[in-house]
């Protein structure tokens, strides 16, 4: 009898051991599978960057950055697109900053809990998920046709500002919320009124956070294509823009048209790659600045 029980217990122990080994094995298998998935994303990023950089070699040089557009691939450059991007930012940066920070100040400092505040909040989060091509349609109708701005830098800049507005609002809100209450109370205690407190105390403290958000918004605007295509930016612009009412082109648009035209002129693929490298380097640099601001100037209380 005892022997039989012993036998059974041994069997049970072996069974348990097998089962635990199986469970641990499964766990390790899953871990490897999950890590492979994550690595897949990294590998794709690597391939993408490698492909584009490899194609741009030999085409990306100082001449490429400083030459005008041309139908001959060897002579073509992106001076116009770079200047167009700079002009576009001259509109986008002030407009989004003023609108975005003001909206955030309203939501965080002035608004009282209620329908009005909820409306603005819900609206911002919904606006953030409207497809960019729809913003293009808005810009086409309101700025291009109703206000008669055509496909000028001003029309493009205003459309782009509305598109990236939610990014600045959300980032500024977080920055304002992070300002500790005792700073405000100290300011009020000294007899300052609300606006003085915001202007002299709250905003200076939250500027690093706001700037980080602004830079993210700017990099989104620099890389965005669809709304500008919808506005009807002409295909081939030889003229360099000199004012905000001029027609213009930007780097993503240039990439778009060159990619489309690779069917006719295969060399355009190299031009597109070279432009992508310039675009990605610009975005990389902007993000680097954002990280430096975040790490260096962010005060913690």
């Amino acid at each position, binding site marked *: 009898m005892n022997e039989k029980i012993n036998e059974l217990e041994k069997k049970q122990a072996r069974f348990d051991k097998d089962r635990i080994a199986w469970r*641990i094995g499964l*766990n390790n298998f*899953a*871990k490897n599978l*999950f890590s492979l*998935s*994550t690595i897949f*994303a*990294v590998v*794709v*990023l690597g*391939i*993408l960057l490698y*492909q*584009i950089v490899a*194609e741009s070699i030999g085409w990306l040089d100082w001449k490429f950055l400083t030459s005008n557009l041309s139908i001959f691939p060897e002579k073509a450059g992106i001076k116009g697109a770079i200047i167009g991007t700079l002009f576009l930012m001259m509109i986008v940066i002030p407009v989004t900053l*003023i609108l975005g920070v*003001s*909206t955030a*100040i*309203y939501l965080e400092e*002035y608004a009282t809990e209620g329908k*009005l505040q909820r409306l*603005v909040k819900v*609206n911002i989060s*919904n*606006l953030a*998920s*409207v*497809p960019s*091509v*729809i913003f*293009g*349609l*808005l810009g*086409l*109708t*309101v700025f291009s*046709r109703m206000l008669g701005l055509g496909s000028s830098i001003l029309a493009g800049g205003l459309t782009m500002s509305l598109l990236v*507005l939610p990014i600045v609002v959300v980032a500024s809100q977080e920055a304002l919320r992070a300002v500790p209450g005792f700073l405000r109370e100290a300011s009020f205690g000294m*007899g300052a*009124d*609300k*606006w003085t407190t915001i202007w002299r105390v709250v905003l200076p403290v939250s500027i690093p956070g706001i700037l980080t958000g602004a830079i993210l918004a700017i990099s989104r605007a620099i*890389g965005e*294509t*669809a709304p500008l295509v*919808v*506005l*009807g930016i002409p295909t081939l612009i030889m003229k360099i823009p000199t004012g905000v009412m001029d027609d213009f082109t930007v780097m*993503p648009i240039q*990439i*778009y048209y060159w*990619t489309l035209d*690779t069917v006719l002129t295969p060399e355009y*693929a190299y031009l*597109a*790659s070279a432009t992508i490298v310039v*675009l990605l380097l610009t*975005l990389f640099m902007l993000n680097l600045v954002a990280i430096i601001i975040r790490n260096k100037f962010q005060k913690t209380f």
Partner: protein
Amino acid sequence: MEKNNVREIIQNNIRKKNHFSDKVMPKFFLVMAFISVITTFGIVYTLIFDSIKFFSQVPIREVFSTNLNPLSKTPSFGFLPLINATFLTTIIAMLVAVPIGMAAAIYLSQFASSKLRKVLKPILEVLAGIPTIVYGFFAYSFVTPLLMKLIPSLGAKNALSPGIVMGIMIIPMVASLSEDAMNAVPEIMKDGALGLGSTKLETTLKVIIPASISGIAASIVLAISRAIGETMIVTIASGSSKNFTFDITQSMQTMTAYIVEFTSGDAGSGTVGYYSLYAVGLILFTFTLLMNLIAQYISRKYREEY
């Protein structure tokens, strides 16, 4: 005036300022905040206003047909090919993004060491920050030729390649939103399961995921919304064929690509073709808005509070 009487200085200051800034500034900021609301109304207004002009000229039965030929002399505006293409590319993107994004989220939140996470997360963020036009170029000039080696019948423009690349683009979004949801599950629950002898995999499948399912589901719905609204990848790599087909190896045009093709072409203002842009835009806007509302509903309704 005596300067050393504090009370007098304060009262003098109050009289001087007359609370001007405290009266005007709140109103100023309210107006600024309302510009975002006006933007939304502007979008809805332009879409509906011009769509009405479209629907008054094109019978609804034609809109729900498969015959799309906007530029012919007797144009027809059946939007089903566009809707079909949008959904096919979205499904392909989801087949890529959801499994890989979820796996990455589970790995980052449950398995990876904090050192590894510090390396991997920024890389995913870089992937998320790459402009879509770059992905479009990548799909057209690299992924499509690569797939052609596997599927010889693949067209130079097709739905498969942009679908896959769109999925890759969305991986970081699914991964980071799902990871946030999983990290929000209280540590005690996880420790409890591990303490009872569960492996990490069992803890993840039986405790973490059920507890964070609302956040995970919301992230997937938001990803769908993103894929529906994605423009440049499909415009470049999927082309502009207006055929109604389920063959993903062939060119097909999504709603977003239709808008881009038509505006960058020369559709004169006031023609039916021009108004069709807004009708397609309205359908697109409705779809994405619906997805966002569903995502908000899911994360509010099925949220587990701990």
